[in-house]
């Protein structure tokens, strides 16, 4: 077993592009779920808005990346209004049901054969990242850095942009949550009737929170698409939202640092587990008491099983995150 390799991969995963785009998605979800208490289970659809906004504009309209961001924003607002208007007046779980269903429909529509000429079907959209690539100061072919932090010029560029966005949005969320606006949404999470009785338009704040969180999610989708150089519908499945949620809960909800550290830890742990199990089953199935337990082909499902289990345990025992304070926990109204 190549322990050095596993550790190297794990360490680089902490700072990798996957952690960056997860962090952006988690920052958005944190605004919605963590601070405002909105169960947005369709964050992947907001991510898809960004990715497809970017991909379609350069692919079909031949205009640059900046237009893609604008189109992505428009798509996010439309999607936010579509899921928000019917549900934000109702109990929290309606939003969960409608967002998850909408996200699934969005995925089905963009991967459908019927709309292939617009969205590219299950192949998605490729070759749209040239204007982003042109902005890069690095030689896309060259390798930079030393192992385990060694990246091609293009990867380095997306990583720098991705993590910069993480830092920028973390700071903006920090400002927002310290402001009276943040006070209102945090109060809504606890008791919206109280907030309403004090003259605040709860519905409007929830909508703002949903859309602002969706916009950050949109940037997550863009970074992801730019890094891969392609937009593929199956990268925006409902499970992506759930993994982001798991990462967020791991770091601790309603905390700016939680939405950054959580995804880093999530990817570190995931890559460790994945690499470890693959090494374990490389030559022959992993056995216990003479019974084959994990085959090579079963490593994927076992990893995801662990994610599901992790989400359950975290939500039950440490909803305030791994580093959360006991004091907040005591105030959880339990």
């Amino acid at each position, binding site marked *: 077993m190549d322990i050095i390799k596993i550790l190297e991969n794990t360490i680089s995963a902490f700072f990798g592009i996957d952690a960056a785009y997860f962090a952006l998605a988690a920052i958005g979800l944190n605004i919605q779920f963590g601070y405002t208490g909105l169960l947005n289970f369709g964050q992947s659809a907001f991510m898809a808005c960004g990715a497809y906004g970017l991909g379609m504009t350069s692919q079909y309209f031949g205009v640059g990346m900046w237009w893609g961001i604008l189109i992505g924003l428009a798509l996010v607002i439309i999607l936010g209004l579509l899921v928000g208007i019917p549900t934000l007046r109702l109990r929290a779980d309606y939003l969960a049901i409608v967002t998850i269903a909408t996200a699934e429909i969005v995925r089905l529509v963009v991967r459908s054969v019927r709309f292939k000429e617009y969205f590219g079907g299950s192949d998605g959209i490729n070759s749209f990242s040239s204007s982003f690539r042109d902005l890069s100061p690095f030689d896309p072919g060259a390798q930079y850095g030393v192992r385990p932090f060694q990246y091609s010029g293009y990867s380095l560029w997306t990583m720098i942009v991705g993590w910069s966005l993480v830092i920028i949005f973390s700071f*903006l969320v920090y*400002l*927002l949550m*310290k*402001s*009276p*606006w*943040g*006070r*209102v949404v*945090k*109060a809504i999470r*606890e*008791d919206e*009737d*109280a*907030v*309403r*009785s*004090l*003259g*605040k*338009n*709860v519905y409007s704040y929830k909508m*703002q929170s949903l859309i*602002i969180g969706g916009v950050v999610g949109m940037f997550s989708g863009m970074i992801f698409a730019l890094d891969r150089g392609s937009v593929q519908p199956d990268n925006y499945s409902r499970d992506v939202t759930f993994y982001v949620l798991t990462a967020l809960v791991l770091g601790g909800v309603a905390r700016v640092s939680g939405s950054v550290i959580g995804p880093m830890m999530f990817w570190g742990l995931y890559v460790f587990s994945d690499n470890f199990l693959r090494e374990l089953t490389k030559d022959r199935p992993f056995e216990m008491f003479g019974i084959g337990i994990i085959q090579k082909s079963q490593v994927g499902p076992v990893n995801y099983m662990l994610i599901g289990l992790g989400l359950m345990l975290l939500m039950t025992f440490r909803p305030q995150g791994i580093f959360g304070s006991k*004091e*907040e926990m*005591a*105030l959880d*109204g339990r």
Partner: protein
Amino acid sequence: MDAERTYTELAQRARAALASVNASPGVAKPDPILLAENVRRNFGGVTAVDVQHLEVQRGSITALIGPNGAGKTTLFNLLTGFDTPDNGEWMFDSKNLKKVVAHKTASLGMVRTFQLTKSLTKLSVIENMKLGATHQMGEKWWNGLLPFRYRKQESMIERRADELLKRFKLDHMRDQYAGTLSGGQRKLLEMARALMTNPRLVMLDEPMAGVNPALKQSLNEHIRGLRDDGMTVLFVEHDMDMVHDISDWVVVMAEGRIIAEGTPEQISSNPAVIEAYLGTHQGKSLLEEENA
């Protein structure tokens, strides 16, 4: 001494205005701040509220009493837009509130509290208070990103909040989470927070529920204090002693209707009220026993 005199003056003025009013259900008042007409609400065939006519005198402390299930809280919900009646009209300061949603009633100057206190436990006491202030620039998200735009207003709000906390003797808890307050302190906080909206009518839903006797007296003083500051108070209460103590006018509800109105003295001797409180059968037997 000074405060004492003001209190008596205002109390006397309110009582004087109400002295000439007939003690009958749905009676008109000289200067109503709140007026409800034919407000009705059904829950699956059961009439929870059916108020023909109700007026609340400006500058008075009006108590709304009645047995459990009389529809007092439902009436509160209807008047403040937290529930929608099947029909009826109601006005606050001659503005029709029929189509006004809950959060707008508060900005019009009509604020309510809740039977089960809604202190926001994970916000600090001072944050709870500051939440109450209306028209905050920083509550717009784009201003929220630019602290210098709301900082000045925020410090003014904070000063006002601190004054109120002092008055309600919560200043020592200022930076604690509201979740750490006792039940009575939460009631006080909720009342103080409601005052941050600068209301003209304060509607308190059972302000004394779950409050220990020692604190009750100071709550009483605070409610009187609201009137002294020129506010009108309408409150729901079970504690008859308190009702007697502080209210200028009492409205009695039973089974959704208003069955009696009057000064506390008039109400405590009203047979319809006794009957409603004791239940029809018991009430009858009580009267029969008295007759015998």
